């Protein structure tokens, strides 16, 4: 009985601490700036074409993060901003990967054509 009451007390104290932590989270302005930069970087990498879903998700989360910050929900804003950042980085990497893949494919096709041409010439 005594044990139970002690546990309850500890839980209450922890909850209070957590709530206090929540309330004291500052507006994640730095995180938002990082996230915004990541989205812009993805855009310049061509993510609008190569990874439209990831880019849309990132922008959506960035917008929602700003709304949550403006409403004082800094914890939620921070989480959304961080997710928006990884989403944007994924979009950027997908765009870069797509571009590189296209280059490799194009070069290999060009090589095949070149090789065929050389073969034809030398057989003439």
């Amino acid at each position, binding site marked *: 009985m005594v044990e139970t009451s002690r546990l309850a007390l500890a839980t209450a104290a922890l909850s209070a601490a957590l709530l206090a932590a929540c309330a004291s989270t500052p507006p994640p302005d730095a995180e938002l700036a990082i996230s915004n930069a990541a989205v812009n970087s993805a855009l310049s990498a061509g993510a609008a074409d190569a990874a439209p879903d990831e880019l849309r998700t990132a922008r959506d989360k960035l917008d929602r993060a700003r709304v949550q910050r403006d409403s004082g929900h800094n914890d939620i804003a921070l989480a959304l901003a*961080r997710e928006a950042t990884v989403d944007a980085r994924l979009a950027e990497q997908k765009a870069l990967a797509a571009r590189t893949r296209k280059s*490799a494919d194009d070069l290999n096709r060009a090589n095949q054509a070149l090789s065929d041409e050389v073969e034809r010439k030398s057989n003439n």
Partner: protein
Amino acid sequence: MKNLSSKLSVVAGAALALALSACSSLQADNPNLMDAHAAYNAAEANPQTHEYASGEMMQARAALDRADRAYNDHDKAQHVDHLAYEAKQHVSIATSVAQRKADEQRVADANAERDRIRLDARTREADQAKMDAEQAQSQAMVAQQQAEAARRDAAAAQANAEDTQARNQALVILLQELNAKQTERGMVVTMGDVLFDTGRAELKPGAMRSIQKLAELMKDDPARNLSVEGFTDSTGSPATNDALSARRAESVRQALIGQGVSGDRVMARGYGEAYPVASNDNAAGRQMNRRVEIVLSDQNGRVAKR
């Protein structure tokens, strides 16, 4: 003692049960964290991700550890989900980076391959050009050799023609000087009896000019032979005439040998009073019959028989 050990085993059993339930609850009650683990393990098992995106995989691992800690610390499900999501996105980033780097390697390989193909093409072209040039050169050389041979042949033919012409001309002049006559047996030079004393076979000095010219002709025309034939008129016995005509012919032959003509190219024979060229009834006719005829062979050294 027994009581304590039984208590301990109960506690241990409870701890084990708790651990097992924690383990199974990780799989069961947070599918997002479970997904993140599955994605991480799949990426970790891929050699390409290992090789090209080890840094990104470390970030993913760290994010996954944060999510696990939050889960084990019984953080709010929402927070665990958030961290699991971040971890999963980091895994995707790592996969994407590895893909790009593998493709960058393909680009580098393709560039190297293109250089190799071009070099190969240039090498083949150069080899072909060299082969063509060598062929052209050898053809030119053959043509030049043929032209040179043709020129030599033409020059030789001309020289031969000039030589033949010159020789023929010299021969014609000599034969004219020797007062040679064309007969059906060939060219015949006749030496009259004025070149011998009566009844004798020794040539007089006046005959020497003709002998020298004949020797010259024989030297110029090494393929020819001579037949020296002596004749008399019908005065005297045939035996004497035969002998005298033979000695006179031999006398001419010896004179020719004396001028350097090889003896085996000159045949001498006396015919006596046979084959007269004029009547023996008068002095003028008899003088014409007393003679030595020198018959030139054909180009092959043959003299037609009488």
